């Protein structure tokens, strides 16, 4: 028999017309087309499996998987097969899919990248072709060329360079103008001035029949700049990976209770006063009060606390929390932007707005660099104009502009970051904000959330105290598999991991707050099974020995839960269930301590739980470590602010919605991959797995990246210090400058690629 099934009911919402119209397109031949994001694709075999399975279905005319972006292009005939059925087939294979809207933020980003690729490709075409002309011209300069051909070649170069300047260089020039109007000296300015000055001078020379034509310089230099920008954009779009937005895109449904019965409606159509039914296992769709029913809800996503909260008639329910036990009828008080969840998101946004971003090293240097370049170029021009003629003046001024080419400087940071983010992604660390990598090396204080970050974030059976543990597990699993309570899920997971098969039960009953019961038929005959806490055993008249009671008390004091199991009136034993520390948590603390980084642990749990946690962690780590208990979501952010006021650079590690404001507030933030989408949304870095050792790894990658960026900046500065005076003295012709320029860019690129080799030894 199979473990408890998921909730296929959710997929049925995709049959609704109003849900479909958001992402399904009708094709001319009458079939339908949709882009879906598929979660769980990790290799080529997945692509094969999905494509085979779906195209084998009747009515599916096209199923194509994009391995890199985890997208599925689906075309089907609505009269032959329904979308929910296709999605259920996909779910049966183990993949979850949600609609992907090309109009969404992500779709727009992809479009922008595509535009950039066009511009880069076009500049590349220009650079390749103009090179042939240049080779002919250079050869001609050495071995003689008739002025007629030279003139012709110059005009051909002009014909290639003009569209490249307009199409590929257009956005750079307009960005430079925009920056100038706003009084900013950006990286675009010297690029634009260099390109325009060289172009205009070459055009003037060409029309005069002169020899100094540098259209090839303009084109090559735009191409190199665009390659750098494209790499940067690519790194950025890789980071905002599809899976991160899965939950956000999910249209959520609610069951509305009306006079005529029940209907399924989209959450955003709810208004205050609506009556809703919230079944066991469903998310509460909006904030409201309980009208009838008795249940427990899991509010961990809001509070970080895993203990369930008892809800009775008149109690408040928060949208987004999960109803784990009985069915409830609730009245909506706040929907949409008024809910607790929406307020937390607002908190996040305001924290993001107020936080001083880590300013990139290059960004601080660039305005000065640009100003100095322009000044030197102007001085050179004026000096030679007064002491010599206009031609030499313009030539040397242009040489200064070209030779101080910001290429190397412009590539220094993006190249290093592109290499690092790509390398990190392959190692399961997703860098959403490349600038964060540089900032990581300055971190002096790490703030960590307990639940879900240092601990697994889910209940697990850690110990079974019983004479026959297999039988106890089997009986408990038989009853618990019908419920979605976190403890029930833990029991079922333990049955599976013990390699036992599920047996069936009947006449199950749920006693809210106490436990569950039912009749189970196993090899020893049909028996009555009770699974629950001490109070349940008392209420059904089963005797609990003093030793067992002590064990229960001990487990409760360590923030665990003791689940007692009885069959036919006899206690079989107990299960110790708790949210375990992640493997690697101890090593993480120790390794951060060795690096002299102070730590603060924040938890919404009670001081007793915090104390127990502290006992499990290494005590003397060489750096101060504080544990703060009973912290509310807003207080977590305030704690971060307090540390920042003391001059600390704070790295926040968290996973829940309750951590989101603190994650947004911290200088740099890391979210755990299994966490909520909101926490990932406002973090700079997301860990794809649950390996905590990736945190110190990311820190050393950050340090390495910053070092490489610094080296790159040094390289380009040294290059400039040597060649700029030469250009100012009019020793360097623009041709030589154009040859030296790509060389410095190559040096910077090569140095950035070395990051991978440096990081190889680091675990």
């Amino acid at each position, binding site marked *: 028999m199979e473990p408890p099934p998921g909730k296929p009911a959710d997929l049925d919402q995709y049959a609704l017309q109003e849900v479909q119209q958001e992402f399904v397109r009708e094709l001319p031949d009458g079939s339908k087309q949709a882009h879906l994001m598929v979660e769980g694709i990790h290799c*080529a*075999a997945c*692509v*094969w*499996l999905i*494509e*085979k*399975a779906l195209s*084998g279905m009747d009515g599916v005319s096209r199923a194509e*998987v*994009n*391995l*890199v*972006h985890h997208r599925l292009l689906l075309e089907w005939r609505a009269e032959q097969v329904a979308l929910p059925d296709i999605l259920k087939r996909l779910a049966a*294979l183990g993949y979850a899919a949600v609609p992907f809207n090309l109009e969404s933020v992500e779709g727009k980003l992809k479009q922008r990248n*595509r535009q950039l*690729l*066009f511009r880069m*490709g*076009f500049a590349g*075409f220009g650079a*390749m*072709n103009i090179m*042939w*002309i240049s080779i002919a011209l250079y050869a001609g300069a050495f071995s003689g060329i008739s002025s007629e*051909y030279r003139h*012709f070649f110059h005009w*051909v170069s002009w*014909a*290639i360079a003009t569209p490249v300047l307009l199409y590929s260089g257009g956005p750079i020039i307009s960005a430079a103008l925009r920056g100038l109007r706003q009084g900013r000296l950006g990286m675009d300015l010297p690029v634009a001035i260099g390109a325009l000055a060289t172009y205009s001078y070459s055009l003037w020379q060409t029309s005069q029949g002169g020899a100094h034509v540098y259209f090839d310089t303009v084109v090559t230099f735009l191409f190199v700049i665009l390659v750098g920008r494209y790499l940067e954009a690519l790194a950025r779009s890789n980071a905002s990976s599809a899976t991160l937005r899965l939950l956000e895109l999910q249209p959520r449904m609610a069951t509305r209770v009306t006079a005529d019965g029940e209907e399924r409606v989209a959450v955003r159509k709810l208004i205050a006063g609506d009556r809703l039914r919230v079944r066991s296992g469903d998310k509460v769709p909006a904030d409201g009060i309980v009208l009838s029913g008795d249940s427990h809800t899991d509010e961990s996503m809001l509070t970080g606390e895993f203990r369930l909260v008892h809800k009775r008639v008149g109690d408040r329910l928060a949208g987004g929390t999960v109803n784990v036990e009985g069915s409830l009828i609730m009245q909506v008080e706040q929907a949409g932007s008024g809910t607790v969840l929406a307020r937390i998101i607002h908190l996040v946004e305001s924290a993001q707005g107020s936080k001083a971003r880590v300013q990139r090293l290059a960004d601080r240097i660039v305005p000065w660099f640009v100003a100095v370049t322009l000044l030197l170029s102007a001085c050179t021009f004026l000096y030679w104009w007064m002491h010599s003629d206009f031609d030499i003046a313009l030539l040397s001024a242009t040489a200064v502009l070209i030779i101080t080419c910001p290429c190397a400087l412009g590539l220094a940071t993006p190249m290093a970051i592109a290499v690092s983010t790509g390398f990190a992604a392959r190692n399961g660390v997703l860098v959403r904000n490349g600038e964060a990598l540089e900032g990581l090396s300055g971190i002096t204080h790490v703030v960590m959330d307990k639940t879900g970050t240092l601990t697994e974030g889910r209940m697990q059976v850690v110990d079974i105290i019983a004479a026959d543990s297999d039988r106890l597990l089997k009986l408990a699993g038989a009853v618990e598999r019908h419920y979605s309570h976190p403890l029930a899920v833990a029991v079922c997971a333990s049955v599976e991991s013990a390699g036992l098969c599920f047996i069936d039960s009947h006449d199950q009953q749920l006693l809210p707050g106490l436990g569950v019961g039912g009749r189970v038929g196993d090899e020893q005959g049909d028996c009555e099974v009770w699974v629950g806490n001490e109070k349940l055993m008392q209420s059904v008249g089963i005797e609990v020995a003093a030793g067992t009671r002590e064990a229960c008390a001990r487990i409760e004091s360590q923030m665990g839960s003791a689940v007692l199991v009885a069959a036919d009136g006899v206690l079989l034993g107990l299960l110790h269930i708790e949210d375990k520390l992640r493997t690697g948590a101890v090593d993480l603390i120790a390794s951060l301590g060795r690096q002299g980084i102070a730590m603060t642990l924040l938890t919404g749990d009670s001081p007793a739980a915090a104390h127990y946690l502290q006992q499990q962690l290494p005590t003397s780590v060489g750096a101060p470590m504080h544990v703060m208990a009973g912290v509310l979501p807003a207080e977590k952010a305030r704690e971060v602010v307090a540390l920042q006021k003391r001059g600390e650079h704070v790295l926040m590690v968290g996973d829940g919605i309750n951590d989101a404001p603190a994650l947004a507030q911290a200088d740099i933030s890391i979210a755990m991959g299994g966490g909520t989408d909101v926490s990932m949304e406002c973090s700079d870095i997301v860990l794809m797995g649950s390996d905590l050792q990736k945190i110190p790894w990311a820190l050393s990658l950050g340090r390495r990246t910053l070092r490489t960026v610094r080296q790159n900046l040094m390289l380009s500065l040294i290059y400039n210090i040597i060649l700029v005076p030469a250009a100012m003295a009019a020793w360097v012709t623009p041709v030589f400058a154009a040859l030296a320029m790509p060389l410095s860019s190559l040096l910077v690129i090569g140095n950035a690629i070395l990051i991978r080799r440096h990081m190889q030894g680091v675990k």
Partner: protein
Amino acid sequence: MNVIYGLIPGMILLGLVSVLVFFWAVKNGQYDDMEGPAHRILDDDDMDESDRDSDSSL
């Protein structure tokens, strides 16, 4: 050497064609997935139903 007046515009024309092909390829999504198609060649097309079912449990 007058042939050069025909050859060079010809070269640029050819280059332009390749740019158009590149634009078409980008628009057509040829650069969207740089990894998947390399593995697609290894997919086994002629599998019958029974094989497929046993494989889908992987």
